[in-house]
């Protein structure tokens, strides 16, 4: 149940953040989507033993976080909460790959490197996805999808799902609250109420969908869905996209930290 509240807050928080007006927020949603996808592709394309090469890619989330004036804490918290699955799978790497190597005079299992690599990638990809939504918002993202010719049916459906999550979550929360008040010692819903509890919620959902459809029809809905016009992509948008893509390619092509490092250590020597 705490889970429900948290989920609602999380969505509302991202929704709130997306309403700010910063340089990043003002960018065209499609440009942000494309940048994010290129970023993710580059991050994910790194080999499993790669750690150092990933580090320059930290620039992207850090810059966006700063420019978009987003709070760091909730986003970091999200990353920590996410993906027990990843850690669960990744933590087995050191078990299965026990080849060792020497770093700074000490022995390490190579599995730890792959694990670290997975963790880094996880952090970067999760952050990138959250940054996209936190600087764009669901409605503008939907606009971008429409520009990409994603069918109207799907986009409208997606928006409705998004819109009604909080309504239905609160409804479920109230029902569970009522349930727990009369079943003080139970953790979950007892088998005898499985069907009727969830079933009634479902029927109410059906009826609600019906009313929503009627409300839409009464305002002229005929299967077509019109969202507001989104501004054209301007030169600055292209520059943003281009700039990042060039940086990503550079970071992918050259192991920048290694270059910097060897330059520096070379100089010192």
């Amino acid at each position, binding site marked *: 149940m705490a889970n429900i509240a948290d989920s609602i807050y999380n969505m509302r928080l991202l929704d709130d953040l997306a309403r700010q007006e910063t340089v990043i927020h003002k960018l065209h949603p499609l440009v942000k989507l494309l940048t994010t996808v290129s970023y*993710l592709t580059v991050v*994910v394309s790194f080999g499993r033993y790669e750690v150092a090469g990933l580090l320059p890619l930290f620039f992207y989330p850090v810059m966006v976080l700063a420019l978009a004036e987003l709070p760091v804490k909730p986003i970091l918290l999200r990353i920590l909460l996410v993906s027990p699955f*990843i850690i669960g*799978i990744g933590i087995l790497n050191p078990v299965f790959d026990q080849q060792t190597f020497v770093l700074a005079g000490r022995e390490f299992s190579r599995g730890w490197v792959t694990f670290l690599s997975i963790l880094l990638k996880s952090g970067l*990809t999760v952050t990138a996805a959250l940054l996209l939504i936190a600087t764009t918002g669901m409605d503008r993202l939907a606009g971008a999808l429409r520009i990409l010719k994603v069918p109207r049916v799907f986009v409208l459906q997606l928006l409705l799902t998004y*819109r009604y*999550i909080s309504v239905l979550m609160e409804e479920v929360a109230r029902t569970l609250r009522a349930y727990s008040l009369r079943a003080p010692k139970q953790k979950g819903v007892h088998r005898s109420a499985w069907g009727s509890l969830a079933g009634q919620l479902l029927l109410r959902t059906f009826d609600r969908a019906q009313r929503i459809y009627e409300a839409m029809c009464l305002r002229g809905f005929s299967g077509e869905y019109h969202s507001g016009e989104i501004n054209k992509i301007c030169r600055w948008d292209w520059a943003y996209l281009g700039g990042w893509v060039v940086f990503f390619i550079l970071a992918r092509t050259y192991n920048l930290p290694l270059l910097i490092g060897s330059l520096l250590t070379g100089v010192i020597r």
Partner: protein
Amino acid sequence: MHMADALISPVVGGAMWAATAGVAAYSIKKVQTEMDEKKIPLMGVMGAFIFASQMINFTIPATGSSGHIGGGLILAILLGPYAGFLTIASVLAIQALFFADGGLLAYGCNVFNMGFFSCFIAYPLIYKVLMKKEYSTKRIFLASVLTAVIGLQLGAFGVVLETLFSGKTELPFGTFVLLMQPIHLAIGVVEGLVTAAIATYIWNARPEIMEKASSGETIGNISIKKVVAGLVAAAVVTGAGLSWFASSNPDGLEWAMIKTAGTAELEATGGLHQQLSDLQSKTAFLPDYSFQANEDQPEQSTGEGEEAWPAVDGGTSTSGLVGGSLTLILAALVGGGISLMKRRKYRINS
């Protein structure tokens, strides 16, 4: 069982995206031609319902633990496979964006694992067939549990294959399968039982809702032939995707490792990679450029054009450490600097 971005390679992600987009496009076409537009809000709100209902913990008798529903099956039952698939897709999209469950690149994998298998394979081939004769509580239970279990087993196997082909973990195939399938057997049974309980309730309370979905326009005319054709198509797409992946697996390092220092563990997965490696050298999608970068390093000890373990060489690892730390510090400084400037601007403005 959300696949995460961090665990897949771009090629696996891309291939599954393509497969998913294909199925989705077909479903949208079906939805638009075969259903009234009334279903659109219903799909949207049902998607939200799945979200909300995932918060309900159902206590599993005699175990003391509890589980929740994934929703794929109940959506297929109530909305039909096409609308059900699209609804699952939008649920997963929101999970990926807002809750970072799964990711944008892994989205195709996730929709495929959790939507395709339950809506287009388990549902028509098992549920529909079992329920064809008559509706009864017993049948609903039997059909739901079987369908849910098989759908989830397929999905879990999908996760295993996708992870394996992406080559980001060291998990041997066998171990991973032994890990994933039994867990999802249990999850499938719970999903099936809960779904059956809900379906039975709806069947008693508002039979017209289910009748429409099961006998009506939407599913009635999926023939087995079509499903098989769809399966074959999916297999081809997946196969093509996988061989594409194979041809471009950027992770050649392991291959090199086997050659230089083969270990027992590595051989387990090595066999697969060995076969794929020939193709790999021909075409390279995002080739692992770190090799080239290393080539440029004079200190590098191996000269085969493939990277040796960086730590073998003290110099490289020191450079890596120094450079890496510097990069991170620089990133932090830039971020901090921008924030500071912004804050100062505010203060001046206000």
